[in-house]
């Protein structure tokens, strides 16, 4: 009963200050929603990333893969003959672009599908072990749509009605999911599909549409292995049919051994587990990037929550003082505060989760777009992440309660008289000094931390320390700025200005909170802006230097950052033999798994045919004395900077790589600056690549010609591509650079969203603090009005004050933002990507941010100014 009364008392006091409670709730809510949305977007993306890697590999234990091109068809039959007990199945696995057939209009969206070609007869043997029981009772008479249970997975193939199963085995068509069908605007199986791979189109009938299920990747396109081989045939350009890999389930070491013995030299057996590992490392850099962003968002929103809560408590100090005088003890007040905070933060956190899950959908879309650009095509589905919600709630409530603790302590321990006396909170010089010294120490500890620990977490802790340190330093800085400005003669003689400025000094604690919130938000924005700008400038610089050819030709790729497609051989020859071509370079790019000593890391192996005049476009971070002489050596490779950073390899070191028939040692002759891929690149001379990997395909070509023949060459290349039936991207130098930068920009779309959100949170928080400060000043405004200042004058005075606050925040956020940018580029970026970036500061954008800060402060001051101007003088005076 007693508790109930106390609870009701707390609720009353919250409704007695409705505006304050509202602001506190909204601020916490926005902060929590920020955490929830970014976190669940990251989780969603990760899940989809993982599930698309895992969904297709459940019960097989091993894979047989080739280190050059695919696995020869005949190998499959040979092994089956020799080891009939081994459950072996061939698989073709890759990404393709899809469109509904006969939709020719450009508006028809092309979608990405995960093509899985299987041999249904053998596939079932290793896949269905654990699922068999599920289907005994299922009724699957409906001819075209199959309602499968969640666990159905791929064994469903077995349960296709006999005539359909037969058609599937014959390779008559494809099976897609309902989700993909919807995307493609396909309603029934009467429709058919057009599939694009490397710009080559093939047409396919539809056999069935699977109902959506969480265990089946939405983008799955299932067909018989023979059909998949057809689609991939041009790529493999081998005189024999190949499959991408063979899978089998085997726990018998003896059997495994005998398999290894009969396996041709160019094939190797890998455990399913290790191949998964390499897939997941590919995403870790991007994950890091996302984590970085959500960490920043978290820090900012935690800070703003802290501000909000401590501010609303500060405002009620007088009330608490009176309660103390009336006999409530310190603990009572502390509990009261804590209880109220608990109520407010719980409401706010719940609302924040609601808002967050709404924003999460947009965020997820942005994140998945970025993943598609960078790594691989996946369909990310946005669903509610309970862990993110729990995280958001926990953070919202704990931060609020932690924020209230020092204030509760202060109110509980202060002699009641002083609490009441301080209608204004002009802090003593001593406490200012103590705070500033503490702030400085925290600042210093941030740098000490960075210098001593080279881990990404240290970077974030350092940023947090910077923020806390500056929050402690700001009151002193504000005092110094205000008191030096009030010494300027022009200001000194205008009491009107003086009232505004001294007002900041008088409500120092409150203004500090508002200014700190603004400073932290703006400096975060500045830091991220500087980081992206530095990034972009570095990349642009690098592109200008690297792209020295005139025309670039490659098949369309599903993933913007990696071009692993292939150009048809004859087309290739025709392209480089065109008249007007001075010199040409070719490249072939494929992914490769580094040996165990490098954690089975995935890297990009790029084989280059370079004309000597292209050598100078590569910039070495470090290299042997004459790297291009070494380049012709059969055992020489160059590494890209990120890969060198991640593996810790240097010039002169050796690297073991799986070539077509065995592991071979290569010597690293140089580390090249490269910003195209954070996965890491190994460069090798194409002459030697073709021998070691027995692969003569080409992923792309660049042509050099005289400037006046560019246009004609572009045209004739297009004609050639058409003639050979392959759609190619044929781009001029500038066009390629523009697209590359566009890809770069899209990588940072998520960051833009974050910047906007941060500014929004800051806006909310400074609006609420400024309004609260001005509400407290309304008595003063009434006096000024009574003395004879007109309403406009009072409004202007408020605006002047908030503008000053904005200017101070802007000025303070410049150095803080720069320091944070320094940490982001020099520590966090280096730790997560391994790129060296040059810190670029664009004066114009910094000035722009400064202006935005001031505009935000002025904007946040508009309503308070209006409110002050329309004060009812007599009533307000009477209230005091």
């Amino acid at each position, binding site marked *: 009963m007693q508790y109930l009364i106390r609870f009701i008392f707390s609720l009353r006091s919250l409704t007695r200050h409705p505006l304050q409670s509202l602001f506190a709730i909204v601020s916490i809510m926005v902060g929590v929603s920020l955490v929830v949305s970014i976190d669940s977007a990251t989780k969603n993306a990760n899940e989809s990333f993982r599930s698309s890697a895992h969904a297709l590999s459940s019960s097989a234990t091993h894979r047989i893969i080739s280190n050059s091109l695919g696995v020869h068809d005949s190998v499959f039959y040979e092994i089956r003959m020799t080891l009939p007990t081994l459950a072996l199945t061939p698989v073709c696995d890759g990404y393709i672009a899809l469109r509904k057939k006969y939709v020719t209009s450009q508006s028809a969206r092309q979608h990405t599908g995960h093509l899985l070609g299987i041999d249904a007869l053998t596939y079932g043997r290793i896949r269905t072990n654990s699922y068999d029981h599920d289907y005994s009772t299922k009724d699957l008479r409906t001819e075209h749509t199959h309602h499968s249970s969640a666990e159905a997975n791929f064994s469903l193939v077995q349960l296709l009605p006999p005539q359909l199963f037969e058609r599937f085995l014959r390779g008559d068509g494809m099976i897609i999911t309902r989700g993909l069908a919807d995307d493609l605007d396909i309603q029934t199986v009467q429709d058919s599909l057009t599939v694009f791979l490397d710009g080559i189109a093939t047409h396919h009938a539809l056999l069935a549409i699977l109902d959506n299920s969480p265990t089946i990747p939405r983008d799955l396109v299932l067909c018989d292995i023979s059909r998949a081989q057809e689609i991939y045939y041009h790529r493999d350009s081998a005189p024999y049919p190949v499959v991408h890999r063979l899978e089998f389930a085997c726990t018998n070491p003896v059997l495994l051994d005998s398999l290894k013995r009969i396996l041709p030299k160019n094939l190797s057996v890998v455990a399913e587990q290790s191949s998964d590992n390499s897939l997941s490392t590919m995403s870790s850099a991007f994950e890091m990037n996302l984590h970085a962003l959500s960490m920043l968002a978290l820090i900012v929103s935690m800070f703003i929550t802290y501000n909000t809560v401590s501010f609303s408590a500060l405002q009620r100090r007088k009330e608490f003082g009176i309660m103390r005088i009336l006999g409530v003890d310190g603990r009572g007040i502390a509990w009261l505060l804590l209880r109220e905070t608990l109520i407010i933060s719980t409401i706010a956190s719940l609302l924040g989760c609601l808002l967050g899950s709404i924003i999460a959908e947009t965020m997820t879309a942005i994140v998945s777009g970025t993943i598609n650009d960078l790594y691989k095509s996946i369909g990310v589905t946005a669903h509610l992440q309970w862990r993110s919600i729990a995280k958001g709630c926990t953070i919202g409530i704990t931060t609020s309660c932690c924020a209230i603790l020092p204030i509760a302590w202060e109110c509980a321990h202060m002699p009641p008289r002083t609490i009441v006396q301080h*209608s*204004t909170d*002009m802090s003593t010089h001593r406490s200012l000094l103590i705070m500033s010294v503490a702030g400085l120490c925290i600042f210093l500890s941030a740098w000490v931390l960075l210098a001593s620990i080279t881990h990404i977490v240290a970077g974030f802790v350092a940023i947090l320390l910077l923020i806390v340190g500056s929050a402690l330093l700001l009151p002193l800085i504000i005092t110094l700025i205000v008191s030096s400005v009030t010494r300027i003669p022009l200001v000194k*003689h*205008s*009491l*009107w200005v*003086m*009232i505004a*400025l*001294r*007002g900041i*000094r*008088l409500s120092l604690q409150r203004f500090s909170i508002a200014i700190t919130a603004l400073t932290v938000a703006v400096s975060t924005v500045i830091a991220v802006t500087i980081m992206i700008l530095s990034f972009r400038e570095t990349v642009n610089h690098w592109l200008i230097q690297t792209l020295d050819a005139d025309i670039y030709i490659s098949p369309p790729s599903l993933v913007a950052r990696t071009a692993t497609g292939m150009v048809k051989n004859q087309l290739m020859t025709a392209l480089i033999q065109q008249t007007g071509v001075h010199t040409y370079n070719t490249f072939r790019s494929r992914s490769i798994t580094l040996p165990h000593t490098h954690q089975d890391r995935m890297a990009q192996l790029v084989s280059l045919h370079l004309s000597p005049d292209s050598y100078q476009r590569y910039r070495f971070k470090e290299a042997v004395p004459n790297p291009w002489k070494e380049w012709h050596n059969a055992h020489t490779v160059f590494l890209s900077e990120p890969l060198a950073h991640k593996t810790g390899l240097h010039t002169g070191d050796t690297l073991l790589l799986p070539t077509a028939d065995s592991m071979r040692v290569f010597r690293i002759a140089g580390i090249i600056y490269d910003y195209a891929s954070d996965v890491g690149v190994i460069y090798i001379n194409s002459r030697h690549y073709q021998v070691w990997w027995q692969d003569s395909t080409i992923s792309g070509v660049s042509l050099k010609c005289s400037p006046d023949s560019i246009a004609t060459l572009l045209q004739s290349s297009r004609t050639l591509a058409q003639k050979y039936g392959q759609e190619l991207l044929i781009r001029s130098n500038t066009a390629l650079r523009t697209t590359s930068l566009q890809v770069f920009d899209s990588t940072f779309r998520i960051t833009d969203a974050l910047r906007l959100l941060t500014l929004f949170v800051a806006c909310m928080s400074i609006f609420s603090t400024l309004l609260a400060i001005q509400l407290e000043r309304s*008595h*003063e405004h009434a*006096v*000024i*009005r*009574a*003395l*004879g*200042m*007109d*309403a406009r004058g009072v409004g202007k005075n408020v605006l002047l004050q908030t503008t000053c606050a904005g200017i101070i925040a802007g000025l303070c956020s410049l150095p803080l933002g720069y320091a944070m940018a320094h940490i982001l580029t020099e520590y966090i970026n280096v730790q997560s990507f391994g790129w060296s970036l040059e810190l670029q500061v664009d004066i114009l954008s910094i000035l722009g941010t400064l202006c935005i800060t001031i505009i935000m402060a002025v904007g946040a001051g508009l309503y308070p100014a209006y409110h002050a101007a329309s004060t009812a*003088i*007599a009533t307000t*005076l*009477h209230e*005091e």
Partner: protein
Amino acid sequence: MVVFLHIIQHSTVSFMLSLRSLTKSYSTTAGTTRILHDCTADIPRGTMTAIIGKSGSGKSTLLNILSGIDTPDSGSLLINDISLHSITEQERTAFRRKHIGFIFQFFHLLPGLTALENVLFQQELQGRLSEHDIRHAYHVLESIEIAHKAEYYPAQLSGGEQQRVAIARALIHKPDLLLADEPTGNLDPDTANIIFNLLVHRIRADKQTAIIVTHSMEIAERADRIYEMRHGTLVALQ
């Protein structure tokens, strides 16, 4: 001749202030209460008028209306022949700034300004400050014996000292009409007496029209005339 005309003019408009049937009521959730109820009075130029009355009788409310920071529900109010409540808010503010000095019941000094600056602020509202203004303000502070605390902030002053500053602020621009709401209400009798003497001295010296609300009959008796606020009306006692 000119002087004569001047006197004539003054004698025809002999009243600085004339109130006709002023009413004012406040409505709260508890209902509407009528505070002022047909207040009628004429106050001659250059005189000192005291208003006494029970607490809560509406004295402060009346002063607020007289100064234009509150509006009556009905009735008319002429100050210097200007009908204060039929002009715009803007004009009323300008009028208040120029012609009225107000000593509030609770001082109401601006916390961000020093004693001297609080006084000067009233002067600044009239226009830009000059060196002369500063000297003048200092002089006024001196005349009510608070100049030695000119650089103090209100929070650092005692109640009596704050009241002196408030008085200086109300007098600095030599207003035609001085409204004082219990200028000594919060002070001990001795200090109250000293401060009131200083105030009366200044009022008489500058020949100002003054209306002083007070609880003290002793103080009221030093005025030229006394009104009592009774049931919302002004009743002349002398």
